[in-house]
């Protein structure tokens, strides 16, 4: 018996929002262990979201509809990407909706609206956050594209499912190009998801915050949605990295047992990825904002080197 592709699609759509808080919880646990603190436990993010959902909403006087639509849009868009990125199967009917470039642009929509929402209230914080977010994204996007392009060179496709199947079925090769672009991708992912060393998600210190500054005025279920979307975004970026660079074990048939195994394998990869991220975050300090061009420049450099290495060496 095999599961219908639409079923897997639905499975992924459900899996992502459900797993995302747990993933964030896992990262927090590892981080606390690393820094010698006691951890709040795997389920703490779930409890946070639930608490926020229950709370009432307080809106600023001049908040417009943009401010109110943004959380839904952010949540919805990121949920959609869960249907596009192959997490446990390449046989997704909706995967053709967007290739990897379109996927990046979908994230850009979220960013666009979040930035607008930051400016909607009319506080200095919101504007500052939006301004910095847009600067970071404008520098990160070229690097992201170069990293993606190197991967798509290897499989001569920008379609994610195609990339996964080519990479997972090809024979083993040492590819410096992919190594370079993987490092570049990690650097960019840290920037895009607002982690150390670009942004510190755990602080509300006015001079360092970027993402938090934009969503400072949110409360209640809006904040819950935004937070949840943020968690999902982190996980989606990890899944994207896994699909693009370490796709082994994603492709396969649709029978439930194998699906379950692949799901577990995926979770294991995620867990390892979380540890890697914690290692990076613990090892580095938050950067000054105007050091970021250098940081993202390095990411661009690595991605370009990856592409050059592909042409020169492979």
């Amino acid at each position, binding site marked *: 018996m095999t599961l219908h592709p639409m079923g897997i699609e639905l499975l992924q759509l459900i899996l992502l929002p459900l797993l995302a808080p747990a993933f964030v919880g896992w990262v927090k646990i590892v981080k606390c262990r690393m820094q010698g603190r006691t951890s709040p436990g795997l389920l703490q993010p779930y409890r946070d979201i639930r608490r926020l959902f229950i709370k009432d909403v307080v809106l600023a006087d001049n908040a417009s509809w943009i401010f109110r639509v943004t959380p839904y849009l952010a949540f919805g868009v990121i949920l959609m990407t869960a249907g596009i990125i192959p997490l446990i199967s390449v046989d997704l009917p909706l995967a053709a909706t967007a290739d990897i470039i379109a996927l990046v642009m979908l994230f850009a929509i979220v960013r666009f609206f979040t930035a607008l929402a930051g400016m909607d209230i009319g506080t200095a914080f919101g504007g500052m956050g939006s301004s910095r977010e847009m600067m970071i994204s404008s520098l990160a996007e070229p690097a992201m594209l170069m990293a993606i392009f190197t991967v798509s060179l290897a499989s001569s496709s920008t379609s994610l499912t195609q990339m996964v199947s080519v990479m997972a079925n090809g024979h083993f090769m040492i590819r410096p190009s992919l190594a370079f672009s993987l490092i570049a991708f990690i650097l960019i992912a840290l920037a895009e998801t607002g982690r150390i060393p670009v942004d510190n998600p755990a602080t509300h210190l006015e001079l360092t915050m970027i993402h938090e500054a934009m969503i400072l005025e949110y409360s209640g279920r809006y904040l819950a949605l935004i937070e949840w979307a943020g968690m999902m975004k982190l996980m989606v970026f990890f899944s994207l990295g896994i699909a693009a660079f370490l796709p082994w074990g994603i492709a396969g048939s649709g029978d439930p047992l194998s699906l379950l195994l692949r799901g577990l394998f995926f979770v294991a990869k995620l867990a390892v990825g979380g540890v890697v991220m914690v290692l990076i975050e613990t090892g580095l300090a938050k950067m000054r904002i105007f050091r970021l061009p250098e940081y993202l420049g390095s990411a661009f450099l690595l991605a*370009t080197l990856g592409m050059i290495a592909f042409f020169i060496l492979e």
Partner: protein
Amino acid sequence: MSTELVIQLNTLLAAMILLTSFALLVQRRMFAILHIFAWQGFFLGLSTAVIGFATGEHHLYISSLLTLVMKVILLPYILYTLIHKLKIHREIESVMNTPATMLAGIGLVIFSYHLTAPVRQLSTLMTRSTLAVALATVMLGLLMMVTRRHAVSQIIGFLAMENGLFFAATSATYGMPMVVELGVALDLLIAAFIFGIFFFHINTTFDSLDVEQMAKLKEGD
């Protein structure tokens, strides 16, 4: 080990050498530069050994050993003691800003690729594709000398250029004759000592190793 794998391994090492070249270009801290330089030497030595293994040219093992001793241990050590003695291990500013330097570096790599494209088509050696990397390493070393203000980092740029030349020799012809390599190694060692003496002199003359100070030597208008 199959030939396929050897080629891939060599490719990987070439990529690492390229990466270290870029790291040298953008790194600001003196000791970090030294470490990166040592790593570059390490990859170079390893690559030489791998080629020696694959081609059966056994003198390459000696070259490899020589490289490892010279460039991973001896030269970094000499420079390290120098830096310590002269107390110059603070951050150093480069002339160009980092992103611009990186872009220039990328441009140079592409340029080297363009230059070596005809060679790649003609050559039948298995190392032919790394020639572009070798040339790029030379260029990046030169670029490092251009963009740095500090005499020590300029010297490291110079040594990185030499690494590139060595790599070019192994990838273009499977290494130079042994005598030449020994001679070059000796030259490098002597060069390092001479540089040391120069540093002392520059340091005592200008009270700094910043080569911008040397603009004072210019003939006045």
